[in-house]
């Protein structure tokens, strides 16, 4: 018990509180004289064991809440009024306007959506969200806010069939534009080219006119235009024409008027139209990057160089097995710092006696890999194989501190070699081999030494020729040569 709150004071306040809370209090017997037992409905507005003075009344909020009844939202009429004011139905005019914008199916969807929600429910049950995923602002997305939203793209798409205007179309377009600026005493429209041809050709398009008719018409039209200009400018300063196009108009014409046959349509995109697939003057003159012999196997032209250098077709190149053997980062120390690159070594083989090793470096990881892979394909060489399964004799090869020693093994022995040499053997089609790397096991040198060893196998035929002796493989002699 707090020392600052004597028992008597506590008793008084508890009794007062009990009286104040009498309506909700359970019928209690006479108040107990002891201080420690409190009545069930006794309200104490502070913790019992606290040194701060007790509050005399319930703490009230500083701002009173407004009840719905006070806002006039509790009677049916008020609810209906609020609903009709805040959530009105679409008027007939609005619906007509919407029909111009949306397809019948969309209009049907809109109407179904409107019918699905009772506006009264919006009034009675509508709440502002307060869940953690609420947007930080209140918006029904009916309007565009330029600060937040991207610019609306509500213009039509570019005309896909538009092309650059020819001379006549351009002249027509220029006249159309110029007609917006009434100058002088001209009444009515200017004459057009059609007015200068004989009656027979007035209905036919210009392309079908005979040459002399066309030339005469153009000449007369030109004369007419010049005379018109001269007539209208008679006695006037050309630059100071009342009502004529201003400099701003001309600049706008130059910069903004479309030079294509799309009726000066404005769009949301500033990109030019793609060129048509066959431009008339250039058709057939494109260099085809893709060789038709590839049958679409190499659309990106990745294998074209290798194809040219190896003489293999793309289909054959795609069958070549490749494997990444070594990847490491190398750096060139310059006065500007280290220039880091990735170095990769790949092996490539057709699984039938051809093997190649390719090494490449690049600052870009994937480029180094691709280059090394193609280099490996390009450098494939035939590997001598004994019985198409192992090598001839024992060969040893040294690169730097790395020595790779390989030995031929009987059928079914398998590849008891380290993993990089295993991949090389698999690519080359060697199935029985033992190899040891007695000294340094540097990955790059291991691969190079193994490749060198495979290439420097002794050739029994050459040895026999050199010594002038007949060498016979006794494996092929015993059991009638049936050794498999």
């Amino acid at each position, binding site marked *: 018990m707090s020392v600052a709150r004597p028992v008597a004071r506590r008793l008084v306040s508890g009794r007062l509180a009990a009286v104040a809370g009498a309506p909700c209090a359970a019928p209690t017997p006479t108040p107990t004289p002891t201080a420690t037992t409190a009545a069930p409905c006794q309200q104490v507005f502070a913790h019992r064991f606290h040194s701060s003075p007790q509050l005399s009344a319930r703490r009230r909020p500083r701002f009173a809440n407004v009840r719905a009844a006070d806002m006039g939202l509790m009677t049916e009429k008020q609810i209906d009024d609020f609903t009709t004011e805040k959530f009105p139905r679409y008027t007939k005019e609005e619906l007509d306007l919407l029909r111009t914008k949306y397809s019948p199916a969309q209009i049907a969807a809109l109407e179904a959506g409107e019918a699905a929600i009772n506006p009264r429910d919006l009034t009675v049950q509508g709440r502002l969200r307060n869940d953690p995923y609420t947007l930080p602002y209140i918006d029904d997305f009916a309007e565009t806010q330029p600060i937040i939203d991207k610019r609306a793209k509500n213009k039509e798409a570019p005309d896909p069939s538009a092309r650059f205007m020819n001379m006549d179309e351009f002249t027509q377009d220029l006249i159309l534009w110029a007609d917006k600026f009434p100058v002088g005493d001209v009444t009515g429209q200017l004459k057009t080219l059609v007015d200068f041809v004989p009656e027979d050709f007035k209905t036919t398009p210009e392309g079908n006119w005979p040459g002399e008719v066309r030339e005469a018409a153009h000449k007369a039209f030109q004369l007419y235009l010049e005379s018109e200009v001269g007539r209208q400018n008679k006695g006037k300063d050309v630059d100071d024409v009342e009502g004529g196009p201003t400099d701003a108009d001309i600049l706008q014409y130059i910069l903004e008027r479309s030079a294509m046959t799309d009726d000066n349509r404005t769009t949301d995109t500033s990109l030019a139209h793609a060129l048509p697939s066959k431009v008339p003057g250039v058709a057939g003159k494109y260099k085809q990057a893709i060789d038709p012999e590839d049958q679409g196997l190499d659309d990106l032209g990745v294998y074209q160089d290798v194809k040219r250098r190896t003489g293999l077709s793309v289909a054959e190149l795609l069958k070549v097995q490749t494997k990444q053997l070594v990847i490491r980062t190398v750096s060139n120390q310059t006065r500007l710092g280290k220039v880091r690159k990735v170095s990769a070594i790949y092996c490539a083989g057709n699984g039938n006696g051809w093997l190649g090793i390719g090494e490449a470096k690049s600052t870009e990881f994937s480029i180094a890999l691709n280059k090394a892979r193609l280099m490996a394909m390009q450098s494939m060489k035939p590997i001598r194989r004994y019985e198409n399964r192992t090598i001839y004799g024992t060969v040893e090869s040294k690169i730097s501190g790395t020595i790779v020693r390989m030995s031929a093994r009987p059928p079914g022995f398998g590849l008891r070699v380290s993993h990089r040499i295993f991949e090389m053997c698999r690519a080359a089609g060697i199935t029985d081999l033992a190899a040891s790397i007695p000294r340094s096991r540097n990955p790059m040198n291991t691969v190079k030494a193994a490749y060198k060893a495979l290439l420097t196998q002794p050739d029994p035929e*050459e040895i026999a020729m050199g010594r002038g002796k007949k060498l016979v493989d006794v494996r092929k002699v015993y059991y009638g040569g049936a050794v498999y």
Partner: protein
Amino acid sequence: MGIASITNACAHLQNAARARLGLTSLPNTKYNLRLALAMHRAGLIASVTRGGPRPPPPEALLAAEAEPVTSDNVATRRLWIGLKYWNNEPVMRNVSPVSKPSRLVTAQFDELSRVARGFGVHQLKGLNLGETMFLSTDRGVLEVREALAKKVGGLVLCRVS
């Protein structure tokens, strides 16, 4: 000198072959002569000619001995060895002595047959593809396969490949 002259001859032949020499000479000893003749039988060298301090002319290489050995000229006699090459490579690329004066290596017939089939016996490694071995036996200096045919073993002189 015995086996020491053989080790010297091996080193010299290997050096001469790797230097792409056509004709080289060894000291005129019986041991060297027998080894050279064994190599000639094995097809590793082109010719063996006894001559003087100057190399014999090419036509004399295949001819019979021009000058007989006498007590006067015996000190100046040399064995002139014609080396062989094939496809720009020496036929005799590696010549490594096996026995040396401080350790003589011998092989009996059964051991020799294993070595000739590519299996190692004691300090002798098995023969590799295209490799051959020369032995000094009581039937003279023989190649390993000659020794096997004659069923004899002996002192292993050198391995050649």
